[in-house]
């Protein structure tokens, strides 16, 4: 870690970079936003926005379980819970296409409610309010390592599985006939989303995590014409919103997650206007 900090100090000799907590936050955003931008392309493509929203919100339940059972490593509990929850939701979506969104809503509401109930049981939910909007100061080296791990996993998955995932998203039967194991690819994808969303929540917050999966991608969709551009713009917008949001929030002392999302939204509206004009 020390060497990385040294490099950061040399490359970015700014006032906001002097602090260790900002270095942590910088690295986290640097790893997190491209990942969310990349995953988002498929989520938007497959119309899974609601799915990922439900997944993000259900993190509250994961936290509650961790806190109630006094598990020291709440991160691990959150990830395990999110992965199981994602697989469950995925199963529902694959089984009953008709009312899938209703059932997802039931499960996610139930999970949020139970989580809130457990956390507010002792009378003060305030302690956890940081989770709702995120807290850059809470990022430690562990989270960065988790994110780096997730980054590598996601890249490997993208290289090996993206085409299959895309094929499955376009035409399941055709994809199956081509020997693609649709269920496996989709399950792997939702697990990946679950892991990355969960790790990112500490920084962005439960309420807004989905915005980062969707908004940069939606902006990219406004101007991109092919898959390559779609990815490029999505990752670019995501990274830009993340970095500028982090730095601006540092100077004006605002919460980072909301700041990032506001910037991403501005980009969306401008690109939307551009796409109308074109």
């Amino acid at each position, binding site marked *: 870690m020390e060497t990385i900090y040294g490099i950061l100090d040399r490359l970015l000799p700014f006032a906001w970079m002097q*602090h260790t907590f900002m270095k942590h936050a910088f690295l986290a955003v640097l790893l997190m936003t491209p990942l969310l931008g990349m995953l988002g392309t498929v989520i938007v493509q497959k119309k899974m926005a609601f799915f990922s929203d439900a997944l993000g919100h259900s993190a509250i339940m994961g936290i509650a379980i961790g806190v109630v059972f006094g598990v020291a490593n709440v991160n691990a509990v959150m990830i395990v819970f999110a992965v199981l929850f994602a697989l469950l939701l995925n199963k529902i979506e694959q089984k009953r296409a008709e009312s899938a969104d209703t059932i997802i809503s039931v499960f996610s509401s139930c999970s949020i409610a139970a989580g809130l109930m457990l956390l507010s049981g002792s*009378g003060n939910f*305030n302690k956890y*309010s940081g989770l709702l909007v995120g*807290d850059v100061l809470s990022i430690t080296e562990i989270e960065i390592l988790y994110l780096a791990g997730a980054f590598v996993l996601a890249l490997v998955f993208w290289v090996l599985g993206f085409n299959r995932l895309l094929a499955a998203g376009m035409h399941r039967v055709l994809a199956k006939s081509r020997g693609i194991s649709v269920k496996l690819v989709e399950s792997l994808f939702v697990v990946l989303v679950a892991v990355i969303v969960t790790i990112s929540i500490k920084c962005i917050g439960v309420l807004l995590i989905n915005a980062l999966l969707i908004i940069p991608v939606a902006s990219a969709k406004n101007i991109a014409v092919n898959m390559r*551009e779609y990815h490029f713009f999505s990752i670019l917008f995501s990274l830009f919103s993340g970095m*500028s949001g982090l730095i601006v*929030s540092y*100077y004006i002392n605002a919460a980072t997650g909301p700041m990032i999302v506001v910037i991403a939204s501005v980009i969306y509206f*401008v690109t939307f206007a551009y796409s109308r004009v074109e």
Partner: protein
Amino acid sequence: MKNKYLFTAVLLIVLTAFLAAITRVGGWQEGRKKEEFLVVTSFYPVYVAALNVTDGIEGVQVRCLTQPKTGCVHDYQLTTQDMRLLEQADVFVINGAGMETYLADVTARYPDLYVLDTSKGTVLLESMEDHDHDHAGGSGDDAHREGVQDKHYNAHIWMDMANYSVQIENIGNELGTVDSKHRKQYRDNADNYLAKVQELQEECRTLLDGKNKSVVSTHEAFLYFAQNMGWDVAKTVNMDENTALHAAQVNEVLEAVQQGQIYYLWTEEIYGERLTQLIQQEYSCKTVVLDTLVLPPQDSKTDQAGEKDAYLAGMRNNFEQIRKALSE
């Protein structure tokens, strides 16, 4: 095709310029003069004490970590601005006794920062809060604090004037140790302020001695206040300041009032009016609205001179409220 990339580049550059402009306007102020000795306090009561102890000393600056509107700091989350302030601090003055739940975070990040725990030597009451709801923070890693690992204490020690005097004493002594060239001035200031608090204590005695009553209270902080005056708190229903009134808690208050035949209820301003309404529908119990002194008085100016006497003024006001209720 080319247009698109040009458009994106222009968009991002314009946004960057705009955001850069915002950060300029957004109240960004760079720290302090390097030669100054910076004392950072954790929240308002210790801030007021530290202001008095450092009063009029050249080259010593006192800054308060939390925003004045924060109030009690049980569940306070440090902001980036706080971290910047702490990074420059020479001494971090805390209330102690588990009030600063984020302390472990701070000491982990700044192991060299001198932490001045004002609760050393104070008489602590045990906390009545359950373990998930305590000041020492039940959630794993931040629970380890020197000396108070297992027990959870009621951290509102400043509400007892005797304890508050110990806190002033601690600040005076330790600041003198860390910043030894001003040792004598700290000592004199501390003595001055101690005399004022002593005077306050006398006032309290003459006003309220021999009028001991049994009360129900809605805040742990009042237990210290009652202890100081020799009053008996029959029951404390601990309502967390920032949460809405829960029906179950109101019921607890009502039951306590009824069972103990109690005529006085001590509460905070935010609950005062509603609790009074609820209770007076059924019982002839007086609500006395007291201040826990964690917020600056609303009419005070923001300059430090006006804030120096906030504790004394707040306490006097509390006495006055109680006296009024007694004489009604």
